[in-house]
């Protein structure tokens, strides 16, 4: 039971943290719960399909299918988060000033809510597929009872969800003024971490050079497989022994998102005057 608890918890946690931050960032947006709920539901459904086709995906693209797909998912999610963050930055003042109007604006056309719903769906898809594969693996082991796998899985799911919910509750405590700054930064780091993960996958199939195999080793300070290390890994992309390309992607993503925030905010200022 412990085995299934640990792995389900870890996978659920990854998706739950992302959902928690997204829910906080979209607080007050109309139909937000329906959208995010739909993202989770579609993610779960597709993850079962993805798990079923894992072997086909792995064998595709000369054995690189899995890494390329993972990298594509991570990069898309990072790009969508980046776009949403820039949108928030441009509209932050209006959001704070008159939440109702923005609600209207958000529900028209493509909005950060759409972007972030896809991000939620993608993260549930990725983590869900791994969970399904793992559960299938231990279910095939005759010495482990189905009941114990099931209970471990359910506890893992509950525990992961609680952590995600706590993050949400923690974030919405901040006053409106700080709230946007904090959620935007969190989302920015989340996107940077995802881009670093994508770089990791692409260098695993030799599509990107590692540049430097190990940029630094901070595992003595904060091990990546420990509780805090795992948590920070998901939330801000912490890695105890990152490769050069991972750090490069991380920093580049931060620069791109911050650059666009400044650019768009500047353009808006310029239009006004």
């Amino acid at each position, binding site marked *: 039971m412990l085995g299934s608890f640990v*792995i389900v918890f870890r996978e659920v946690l990854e998706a739950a943290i992302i959902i928690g931050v997204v829910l906080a960032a979209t607080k007050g947006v109309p139909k937000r719960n329906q959208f995010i709920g739909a993202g989770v539901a579609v993610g779960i459904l597709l993850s079962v399909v993805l798990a079923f086709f*894992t072997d086909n995906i792995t064998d595709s693209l000369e*054995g*690189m299918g899995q*890494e390329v797909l993972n990298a594509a998912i991570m990069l898309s999610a990072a790009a969508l988060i980046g776009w949403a963050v820039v949108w928030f930055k441009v509209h932050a003042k209006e959001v704070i000033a008159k939440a109702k109007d923005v609600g209207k604006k958000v529900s028209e056309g493509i909005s950060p809510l759409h972007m972030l719903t896809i991000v939620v769906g993608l993260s549930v898809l990725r983590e869900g597929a791994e969970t399904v594969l*793992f559960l299938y693996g231990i279910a095939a*082991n005759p010495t482990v009872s189905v009941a114990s796998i099931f209970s471990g899985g359910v506890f893992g799911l509950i525990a992961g969800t609680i952590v995600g919910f706590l993050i949400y509750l923690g974030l919405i405590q901040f006053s409106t003024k700080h709230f946007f700054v904090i959620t935007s930064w969190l989302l920015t780091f989340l996107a940077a971490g995802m881009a670093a993960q994508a770089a990791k996958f692409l*260098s*695993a199939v030799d599509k990107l050079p590692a540049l430097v195999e190990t940029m630094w080793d901070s595992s003595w300070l904060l091990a990546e497989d420990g509780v805090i290390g795992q948590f920070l890994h998901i939330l801000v992309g912490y*890695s105890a022994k990152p490769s050069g390309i991972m750090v490069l992607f991380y920093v580049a993503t931060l620069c791109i998102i911050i650059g666009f925030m400044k650019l768009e905010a500047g353009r808006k200022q310029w239009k006004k005057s």
Partner: protein
Amino acid sequence: MKRPLIYTLAFLVFLSLNLQTSNAAEVIELKIKDHKFDPEIVKVPAGKKIKLKVINLDPTPEEFESYDLNREKIIGGNKTGIVFIGPLKPGKYGFFGEFNPETAQGVVIAE
């Protein structure tokens, strides 16, 4: 507001055009049997790119994972997966099977 996306896409296309393909890498086999790695100690030459051929002889999937090497790859039951590692500095690099971490543990030694 469409611009950030367009720039980002352009950046990704640029990246994909720059993808480098591998030079000939030394192939080393690593088997998974009964949720254990064989061999558990994988000796590789330092400073060289290695193509790790992970052969899963179990009927269940396993995930080859390493924090030291920054690698994770799911290998289906009775399937083989390729994981590129290195060039590595001399040293020890732990890896494990995420789906069976109690038994599936191993280390790459580069020398």
